[in-house]
């Protein structure tokens, strides 16, 4: 089964019900380029939204809905800071909510209520907690009370580049060993760490997250993370379905990710990582180790 087919099946399973009510969706900005994707590492946290360029673009409704809340400014009337800046929330059929944030002051509609797909909701601008002028876009399923990865539902972005795996590491007792450079390790439990990025161009250094990560140890799937949804439970944002990881357990402070801890028994062990992006481009990397 190809990565594109797997992606489609995974997406349908996770999002079938809310997507049915929305029909075909449009990108919130024409010629949209994801700057930060769902699940990107942002200041130690899992980014549950998508930041999309181009800067200063007109922002459009992804589908039909109704404005449930809007605010134009950096401080709410109650004095509460509003790091989203100017923002509009659209309530869609079947409990979906889309949020368009960091809109330029004065660009929000004042009297609009019912919205058709493609209606202009404002212009991305210098607003809220960002010095960039890109749109911050969030998709939320109110019934399941979870964030959804917008790129799973939006039309795919042209992307021919496979994700980059800049390194895979084994960590134990404070020692970090790069896979590939390490020929042998002692038997024991090791944390497997990966440095992954999904560039859209050669010079692209944005910390974009991939869409899925599969870790194979000795050919068997040891972990699989699908960037499809995230949900706050008991005050902690958790993601990857049953894995229920949170930012603290998933991210290292520098943005590298922890794929889990595994017991490596004596003998020869192979570790492989298969990473794919939202367009279905796939990268496979790994190495073999002698465990003594």
């Amino acid at each position, binding site marked *: 089964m190809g990565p594109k087919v797997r992606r489609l099946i995974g997406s349908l399973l996770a999002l079938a019900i809310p997507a049915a009510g929305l029909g075909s969706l449009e990108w919130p900005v024409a010629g949209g380029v994801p700057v930060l994707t769902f699940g990107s590492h942002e200041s130690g946290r899992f*980014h549950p939204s998508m930041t999309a360029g181009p800067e200063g673009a007109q922002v459009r409704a992804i589908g039909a809905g109704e404005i449930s809340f809007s605010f134009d400014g950096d401080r709410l*009337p109650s004095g509460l*800071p509003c*790091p989203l800046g100017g923002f509009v929330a659209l*309530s869609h059929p079947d409990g979906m909510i889309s949020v368009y944030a960091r809109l330029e002051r004065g660009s929000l509609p004042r009297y609009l209520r019912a919205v058709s797909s493609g209606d202009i909701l404002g212009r991305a601008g210098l607003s*809220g907690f960002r010095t960039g002028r890109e749109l911050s876009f*969030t998709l939320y399923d109110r019934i399941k009370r979870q964030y959804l990865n917008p790129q799973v539902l939006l039309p795919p972005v042209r992307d021919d580049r496979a994700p980059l795996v800049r390194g895979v590491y084994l960590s134990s007792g404070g020692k970090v060993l790069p896979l590939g450079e390490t020929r042998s390790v002692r038997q024991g439990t090791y944390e497997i760490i990966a440095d992954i990025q999904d560039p859209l161009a050669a010079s692209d250094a944005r910390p974009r997250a991939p869409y899925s990560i599969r870790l194979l140890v000795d050919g068997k799937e040891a972990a699989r993370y699908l960037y499809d949804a995230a949900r706050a439970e008991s005050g902690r944002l958790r993601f990857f379905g049953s894995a229920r990881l949170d930012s603290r357990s998933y991210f290292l402070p520098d943005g590298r990710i922890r794929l889990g801890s595994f017991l490596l028994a004596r003998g020869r062990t192979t570790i492989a990582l298969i990473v794919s992006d939202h367009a279905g481009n796939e990268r496979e990397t790994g190495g073999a180790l002698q465990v003594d």
Partner: protein
Amino acid sequence: MRDVDERPNRLLYALIALAFLGYFFAAAEPLQKELALHPVWAGDVSRDADPEPSPDPALAFSFHLGGRYGAVTPDGTRIWSRGAAFDAAVSDSLFLPYERESKVLSAFTPGGDPAFRIQAEGWPFFRSGRLFLMSPEMDSVSEYSPEGKLLWSYDFPFKITDFDATESLAVAGLLDGSIECVDADGKSVLSFAPGGSRIEVTLGVALDPREEAIAAVCGADRQRFILLVRKGGAFKVQYHRYLDSDYREPVTVRFTGDGRYVLYRQSEGIAVYDRQTGRESLLPLRAESFELASDASRGLEYLFFRAARTGGVVCFEPPARVIFSYPLPGGALWTRHADRSLYLGSGAVLGRIDISEE
């Protein structure tokens, strides 16, 4: 025979007169003394002025007017002010100026001395003297101690539309229509979805200062006012009312200092719900937002309001008897009530007005 007939009438008249006198002295309300406003001083805060040692630092209080912040003594003789690079969070004991995309926050004392630094992304704010940090995505709040130590962080299920805190509780209204309340350790004590509207959203939320009740305006088509009251450790709906309004924007909700009245913005004015009688009154004031300060000694409330092009102070006796109204130009506005004085800031001018009974 005539004398005999008149005796009961006289007795009746005497009884009526006695009852009237009794009512006059016992039931009639004393007339309110006339309140007079006396401007005391006004000062310009538009220029930077370095902090000076105050004769008694405890007497100085902080202000936040537009993008400027600083401290002033009650007599207005010493004022210092600074402009924040972007904005500032201000309490009586701390200033936290911050930039738009701040990653490190520096806190200062009212004397201008560095207090501590916080390495975290977000925008700081104070509620009931407690220091919080709102995450960039507006879906997570952290509380810090007065010394800058992280106490807790709480990821809410969705984006926050309003937030209030008292001494040991914090409540958030969310874009998905739910209301979440956490205790002083950042543990959930309430997760509640009012429902009952075609569109679910929480527009405004407030905590009773005595921590016995939570009020909210939520939903659209139809919009509702909801009052949750703590019973046996859990918050339960005690009262709700469908409203004529159809706001799709923040709606201010506030409790009076004694927790008896809840005020919330409505189309025709500010609704005042009396928790004791269950009755609702209306302050005929078109305000987009407001804050409350109580003068318990006089049984009065000061409502500092902001509208499209204006603002001001309305002094009223709850539920809705207006004593006086004092308009202020629009734009930046800062207000504070202390003892028998009002401190008002508008534009770049800060001033004090004393209230006396005459």
